[in-house]
């Protein structure tokens, strides 16, 4: 009983955006119910690797610690997921941590998800209600629609769907499933619907909805269970109808 149980972490590290990645192994004291983040915190407390050498603490990103912010996504034992929700007891050892390969690495496990936020700008994933006077209450939303739209609103821009998508990579400018689903969310909103065409036009720009090749990994890996492929098909339909309206003309092309 004298010997303390440890957890072995093999972490892919990178000192700066341009430097070469390397692996470093750490043995962390086991604690009951620990998750990957508490393991990383233990490394930060005592940054000594498995060879007993003192090293720099491993950098990672985190925020809410309850799987709603999306900041702590990383590839854990080959699967992209949130490190806060990855319990050590449920993982095979040694635990391998890598940054998500789709995104540029900032340092160690921190990646830059800026392409996701650029994609949200491209599809105008917001509702423009700013005005100089009180516009009064907006139109009501059918309850049934609210229920499925609520599921779409759970997206936390965590990047797991982009990591799993074979068409999101350094050779393509495909915006990925998350932003397509967000365009659907804001077009489903009764006030957002008033600017529906602007979001559809965004989806028709380069890297838009036609970048999807229907590999459908996204819907399998989404930690929030968002029906991403349903959203993509819905936006395929909506952009097609919009392009016909644009070409042939329509009074309802707003």
């Amino acid at each position: 009983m004298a010997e303390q149980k440890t957890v072995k972490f093999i972490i892919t590290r990178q000192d700066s955006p341009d430097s070469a990645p390397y692996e470093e192994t750490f043995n962390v004291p086991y604690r009951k119910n620990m998750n990957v983040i508490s393991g990383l915190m233990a490394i930060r407390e005592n940054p000594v690797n498995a060879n007993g050498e003192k090293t720099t603490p491993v950098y990672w990103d985190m925020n809410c610690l309850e799987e709603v912010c999306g900041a702590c996504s990383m590839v854990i034992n080959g699967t992209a997921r949130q490190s806060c929700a990855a319990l050590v007891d449920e993982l095979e050892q040694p635990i391998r941590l890598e940054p998500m390969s789709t995104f540029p690495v900032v340092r160690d496990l921190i990646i830059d998800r800026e392409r996701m936020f650029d994609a949200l700008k491209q599809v105008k994933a917001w509702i423009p209600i700013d005005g100089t006077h009180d516009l009064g209450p907006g139109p009501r939303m059918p309850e049934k629609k609210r229920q499925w739209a609520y599921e779409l609103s759970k997206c936390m821009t965590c990047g797991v769907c982009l990591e799993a998508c074979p068409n999101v990579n350094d050779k393509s400018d495909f915006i990925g499933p998350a932003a397509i689903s967000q365009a659907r969310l804001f077009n489903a909103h009764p006030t957002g619907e008033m600017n529906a065409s602007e979001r559809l036009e965004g989806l028709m720009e380069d890297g838009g909805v036609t970048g999807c090749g229907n590999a459908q990994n996204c819907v399998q890996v989404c930690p929030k269970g968002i029906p991403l492929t349903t959203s993509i098909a819905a936006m395929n339909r909506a952009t097609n109808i919009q392009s016909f309206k644009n070409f042939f003309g329509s009074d309802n092309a707003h």
Partner: protein
Amino acid sequence: MAEHREYFYRRLHSLLGVIPIGIFLIQHLVVNHFAVYGPESFNKAASFMHDLPFRIVLETVIIFLPILFHAILGVYIVFVTRNNIKRYGFFRNWMFYLQRVTGIITLIFISWHVWETRVQIGLGNADLDYSLMESILTNPFMFWFYVVGVISTVFHFANGLWSFMVSWGFAQSPRSQKIVTYATLIVFLAVSYIGIRSLITFAYGV
């Protein structure tokens, strides 16, 4: 259109794969099936197709240009993908991967097939009849090359029909997409049978 060029090309790519290329593929394999009823039956059907009015225009507009466009953009699409079936071995990801593999096989097969038949006939080196196909397919290597080529082409068409249904927004719900998967599986089996059946007749006379 000019402002959404990529969007337009990708939608056109999806459409052309079904109309007219997919329709042509089925028509081609069905006409080939006349071979099963005897060389004369095949020759009659082939010369009917050969003697259609405006044949060169029909071939160019319905076959050559659409396939050329579909092939060029298709090769580009293959190159901007990073396949990840090892990490994400889901059924649809495999279909996505196979769609790209069969696309390349089909391009090689069709290029060879057109060179060997349509181009040689056009140059006057061969005649469009049963014996041309018989002489090609009695070679066992070519027989298997054609079997692989036909199955790959039909798979690419059937699976492409599925993604056409999704890309054009017909099948939106997961349930409808699943049923379209089964429907396109039946298309794959039925059209493959029609194609392979005539290859067997050309090669073995049965």
